[in-house]
């Protein structure tokens, strides 16, 4: 090693319109190390890495690879420099085979046959060398996300990457899968690869990196040796003030059962069981949290209860009266009966993005007398209502006429929350309340959810963020493969929830999984 840094970024600037995504970034990464970049959503981490990978062009600044100043005008240039990237949203073609995905862009000739044979051999070698087994002929959409990620890593290695960038790689993984990924990364490091790990999870930074850089609002605020820092310092650097990593709340005082789910079973259009005989109760004044890796039936559960998706069998009782979940349940009617729903995917089901803020603020409730006079909408009442909510929920910018798409993720989420919470519901379903939301707004949203609980609402919370589930819930149910595999109190440890989330059920604990040393 010549001692020159593997990667050196000097004075990188990048703006999107008026938004400065990266401001005068300096960064240096030593070869053969794992370097973490940590920061909140929207701090500019992904933008910076996209510049390094040639996906965006910096407005100004310099990139040096192994001491040489380079110009990375597109991804091909980055690949040629030995840079590989595993994107947060996998860059795979869902209906192609593993092999086709790996050779795409490096086919080795105009006609595939010869290239494919060579690729198959090379892939076998890589799989052995890094113990990354995959079936080269499997179709991507049939593979679990953990394997899909492995293919992304193989893609980079196949292109002989020496520098590997991973953007939020653990967001879709179970704790066990994440551990496996970290083992792979350590092994790659031992082979001399340089790795950049982008994440907003402090735990991961502490667990695996050698050095860490912290980004806040587009600037690089600090770089530390991981061994010389701690979680508290990093959290403070990230947010710019000390944060409460824990939510203050009183002891819950559960009242009578407001939502009762009995033997609920849901199948998708192909007949695959998505929700398997699920039963639980939610009482007034308590928060029941559903933990689990996304895609284990949580979405179907919320949709079935709220009347969006038809259940195959089972029953749901809302405030003493049944909901016809197996047919005929009408989401609008359920709203009238006091069931509010903050959907998991606000872009897809929660909001109509091209609509004005005030229109979204009444969506689903627009037929009520307070918003209409005869067959027409009462625009004045709607505006007054929207402005009241903007003030209460501190929605920014405070402009009820702005298109919803122009609000940030956190403010969009507040629009949905305000709409659903201000209806004085009996039962509140909340899905992923803080997905893609910045830390300041997270604190606010968590506080509002606790206030709703203290006001005697029955709350069902679904989240893939374990920390969120643990700090908000009074009881925790863990879902795996469409079933509830365990119930824990609010004081459950991350480890035991993680095992449940990975499908290791009660009774078959520790020993079974912890064979390999870390």
């Amino acid at each position, binding site marked *: 090693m010549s001692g020159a840094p593997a990667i050196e970024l000097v004075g990188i600037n990048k703006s999107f319109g008026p938004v400065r995504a990266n401001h005068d970034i300096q960064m240096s990464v030593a070869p053969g190390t794992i370097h973490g970049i940590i920061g909140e959503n929207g701090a500019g981490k992904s933008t910076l890495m996209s510049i390094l990978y040639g*996906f965006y062009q910096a407005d100004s600044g310099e990139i040096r690879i192994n001491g040489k100043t380079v110009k990375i005008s597109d*991804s091909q240039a980055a690949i040629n420099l030995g840079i590989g990237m595993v994107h947060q949203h996998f860059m795979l073609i869902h*209906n192609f085979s593993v092999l086709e995905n790996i050779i795409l862009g490096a086919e080795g000739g105009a006609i595939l046959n010869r290239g494919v044979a060579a690729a198959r051999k090379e892939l076998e070698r890589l799989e052995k060398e890094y113990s990354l087994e995959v079936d080269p002929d499997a179709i991507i959409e049939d593979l679990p996300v953990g394997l899909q990620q492995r293919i992304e890593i193989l893609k980079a290695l196949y292109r002989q990457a020496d520098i590997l960038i991973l953007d939020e790689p653990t967001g879709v993984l179970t704790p066990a899968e994440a551990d496996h990924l970290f083992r792979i990364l350590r092994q790659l490091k031992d082979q001399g690869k340089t790795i950049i790990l982008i994440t907003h999870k402090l735990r991961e930074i502490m667990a695996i990196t050698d050095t860490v850089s912290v980004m806040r609002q587009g600037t690089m605020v600090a770089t530390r040796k991981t061994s010389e820092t701690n979680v508290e310092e990093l959290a403070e650097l990230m947010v710019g003030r000390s944060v409460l990593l824990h939510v203050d709340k009183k002891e819950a005082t559960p009242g009578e059962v407001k939502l009762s789910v009995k033997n609920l079973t849901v199948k998708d259009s192909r007949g695959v069981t998505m929700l398997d005989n699920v039963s639980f109760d939610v009482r007034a004044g308590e928060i029941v949290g559903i933990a689990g890796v996304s895609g284990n039936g949580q979405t179907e559960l919320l949709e079935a209860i709220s009347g969006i998706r038809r259940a195959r069998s089972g029953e749901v009782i809302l405030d003493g009266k049944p909901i016809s979940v197996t047919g005929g349940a009408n989401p609008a009617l359920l709203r009238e009966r006091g069931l509010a729903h903050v959907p998991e995917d606000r872009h897809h089901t929660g909001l109509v993005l091209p609509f004005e803020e005030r229109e979204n603020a009444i969506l689903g409730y627009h037929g009520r007398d307070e918003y209409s006079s005869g067959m027409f909408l009462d625009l004045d009442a709607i505006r007054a209502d929207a402005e009241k909510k903007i003030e209460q929920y501190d929605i920014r910018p405070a402009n009820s006429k702005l298109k919803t798409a122009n609000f940030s993720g956190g403010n969009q989420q507040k629009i949905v929350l305000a709409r659903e919470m201000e209806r004085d519901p009996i039962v509140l379903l909340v899905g992923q309340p803080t997905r893609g939301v910045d830390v300041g707004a997270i604190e606010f949203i968590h506080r509002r959810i606790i206030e709703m609980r203290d006001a005697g609402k029955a709350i069902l919370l679904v989240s893939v963020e374990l920390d969120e589930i643990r700090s908000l819930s009074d009881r925790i149910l863990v879902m795996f493969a469409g079933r509830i595999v365990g119930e824990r109190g609010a004081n459950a440890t991350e480890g035991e929830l993680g095992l449940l989330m990975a499908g290791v059920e009660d009774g078959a604990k520790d020993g079974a999984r912890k064979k390999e040393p870390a």
Partner: protein
Amino acid sequence: MEFLISLQTLDSTVRLSTPLLLAALAGLYSERSGVFDIGLEGKMLGAAFAAGAAAAVWHSAWAGLAAGIGVSVLLALVHGFASITAKGNQIVSGVAINFVAAGLTALLGQSWFSQGGRTPQLKMEERFGEITLPGSQMLADIPLLGPVYSELISGHSLLAYVAFLAVPFTWWVLFRTRFGLRLRAVGENPAAVDTAGISVVWARYRAVIVCGILCGIAGTYLSIGVSAGFVKDMTAGKGFIALAALIFAKWKPINVMLACLLFGYLEAVGIRMQGRELPLIGEVPVQFIQALPYILTVILLAGFIGKAIPPKAGGVAYVKER
């Protein structure tokens, strides 16, 4: 009832499905790359006119073919510019091309040749007329196989053979070449292609150009293959039936051929059934037979015959995030 399977009916099935096949394969390239193309009809019509006009002026079928392909590729590039570079609405662009082609061919035809929008009648040697394959005279007397060879397989325009050979070739290109791999990839997930270091724009333009070439051949076949000149609006909706066939075939080359043969057969039967009484049913209106391809496609789209899953990124211009 024997007309349903007579050699004549089958022979005209081949004749009628050839332009459908060429146009549907053209659409296949474009749509598999993520550019929806409702302008197959317009490109075909433009090509038919250009081929008829050029063949009449230069007295050469090959000049006609070159002109037909040239005009069609030009229209394809307009569509490409609108939908790839300018990131416009692909349906609107396609519809516009259909209108422009319908209007311009009639207008230019009248002002150049003054024959009511027709191009001058072509002589046999100025056309891609019927080719007699070697040995068809000799083999004609062999029972069953003889007539099939000499009447059904032999005796079509050169362009018809091109059309049917294009089917296995297209399959090979799509699934066995780098060009095909990238073309399919860009229609499913352009961001993945971009990050693999491949130009999304260039990959889509190439697909659109291939689409233009095939539509050009389709139009040329209509005006100087099976006819002796261009007639106003001579495509008569064939571009739309080809589009229906493409969807019916779920964007797969071999299926496209089968779908086009089916739709061609329906058309052939429709022509032969005119004025005939069927036992029990009576006379079937021609319009009903003409509508059958669309009805079948609608039934397919409604989910009764498997599921037609279009390319995932189809119809959407590629914009890097943010």
